């Protein structure tokens, strides 16, 4: 086991004026760990994700990240350039709506290859080879490499978005409701894929969702958020099977039995 956490959030707070976005959130994320963040709409989980993924500056608190080179850096003490570089190389960001995370006007191959080109890949054949590899990994027919994402189904678009993120072998991927808006059968396939990839690639992942089924299947640990605060944290199965906080109990008990 590594001795430093991959990501360390301490007393993370984001205010919108007087309104609380998220307040006093602290946790450690270890390499290869999948952390689920659940709560209702407005619970602050997306604000938290945006802060963690360096897209939104917190009003207080600290986020430390241990880079590939072993150095632990304060995300918001980095220059914007370094932060953006991190987001394109060591991190991934999968948005709920694939249209927000993909370039819809360029081919699937270019979507996957973009991150490589952004970090200096200049060999077309290699870039294409990598694109094919990642399309196949995400169960997209490599023959569709030159098709535009708009001709893909919703589930395929979402898988393409993941492929686009994985091509630089990130160590940490942020996912915002990755299965939202997908058919149930498509959801299952995607969840299964994410599960396999996080395990096989040793990927750490922070997944924000309101779907307890998603975290049950994917995440090792869980944060339950309400009103911008973490009301309960623990092992996923422990929080779901033996919730302690009244709000967690309410959340768990409101799942419809299948």
């Amino acid at each position: 086991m590594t001795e430093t956490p991959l990501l360390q959030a301490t007393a993370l707070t984001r205010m919108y004026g007087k309104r609380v976005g998220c307040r006093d959130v602290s946790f450690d994320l270890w390499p290869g760990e999948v952390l689920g963040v659940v709560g209702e709409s407005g619970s602050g989980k997306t604000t938290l994700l945006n802060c963690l993924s360096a897209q939104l500056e917190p009003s207080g608190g600290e986020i430390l990240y241990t880079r590939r080179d072993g150095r632990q850096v304060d995300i918001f003490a980095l220059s914007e350039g370094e932060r953006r570089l991190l987001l394109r190389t060591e991190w991934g960001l999968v948005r709920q709506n694939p249209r927000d995370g993909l370039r819809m006007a360029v081919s699937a191959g270019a979507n996957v290859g973009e991150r490589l080109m952004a970090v200096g890949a200049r060999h077309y054949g290699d870039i294409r080879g990598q694109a094919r590899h990642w399309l196949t990994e995400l169960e997209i027919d490599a023959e569709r490499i030159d098709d535009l994402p708009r001709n893909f189904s919703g589930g395929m678009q979402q898988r393409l978005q993941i492929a686009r993120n994985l091509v630089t072998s990130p160590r940490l991927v942020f996912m915002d409701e990755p299965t939202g808006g997908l058919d149930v059968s498509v959801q299952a396939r995607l969840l299964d894929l994410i599960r396999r990839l996080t395990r096989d690639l040793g990927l750490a992942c922070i997944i924000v969702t309101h779907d307890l089924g998603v975290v049950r299947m994917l995440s090792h640990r869980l944060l339950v958020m309400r009103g911008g605060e973490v009301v309960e944290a623990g092992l996923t199965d422990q929080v779901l099977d033996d919730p302690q906080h009244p709000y967690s109990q309410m959340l768990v008990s409101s799942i419809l039995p299948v």
Partner: protein
Amino acid sequence: MSAMTEQTDPMIAIQGLHKTFTLHTQNGATISALQSLDLTVSGGECVVVRGASGAGKSSLLRCVYGNYRAGGGAIWVRHQGAMVDVAKAEPRTILDMRRTTMGFVSQFLRVIPRIPTLDLVMEPLLTAGRSAEEAREQAGTILTHLNLPQRLWSLAPATFSGGEQQRVNIARAMVWDYPVLLLDEPTASLDRENRAAVVELILAARSRGAAILGVFHDREAGDAVATDTIELRANRLAA
């Protein structure tokens, strides 16, 4: 426990364990599940927990596995040579214990959609770092032992019968040689032949030195594997 096992280092040592459920959705009603429970299990021992329904048998197993949060007391489990208190351990430590130290057979299979049976059974081995080849071979062996026809291996267990699902569940929990095994009615919904196959697996685990804590709804299977028996009565250790 016998004099002989007391000399060996315990694998599980439970001290003063409490567990209470507070039901906030029902006006804060509390249900006591376990009260001041002490228990040790050493390697090569199989302690079978008896008691009426609601006596806290399942809760005990789940507390040891970290699935339920202990309300008080300590649950020491030997993990990589040191005793770790599951009641206070970090989630990360518990996850690590579950990867290599503790196996759990529950009554219910949490079906993961779309994943073929063989892959499900291979998973604990892969997580523990075994090669795919090795994992496939071992998974195949245990599925064969549990009489799960090979034609089912490539299918996801969602559509299997209760007994078949249960056997997949057992295969998954016992394919890796966990030093600590927690068995929550492993033989429920199995026919005679398969019950025997499971008993055989448990005996094999016992003789390789695993510490086993089990709840058996069927007395015969429990008796077949037990080295010791305890009785829970009204959330306490009887006798």
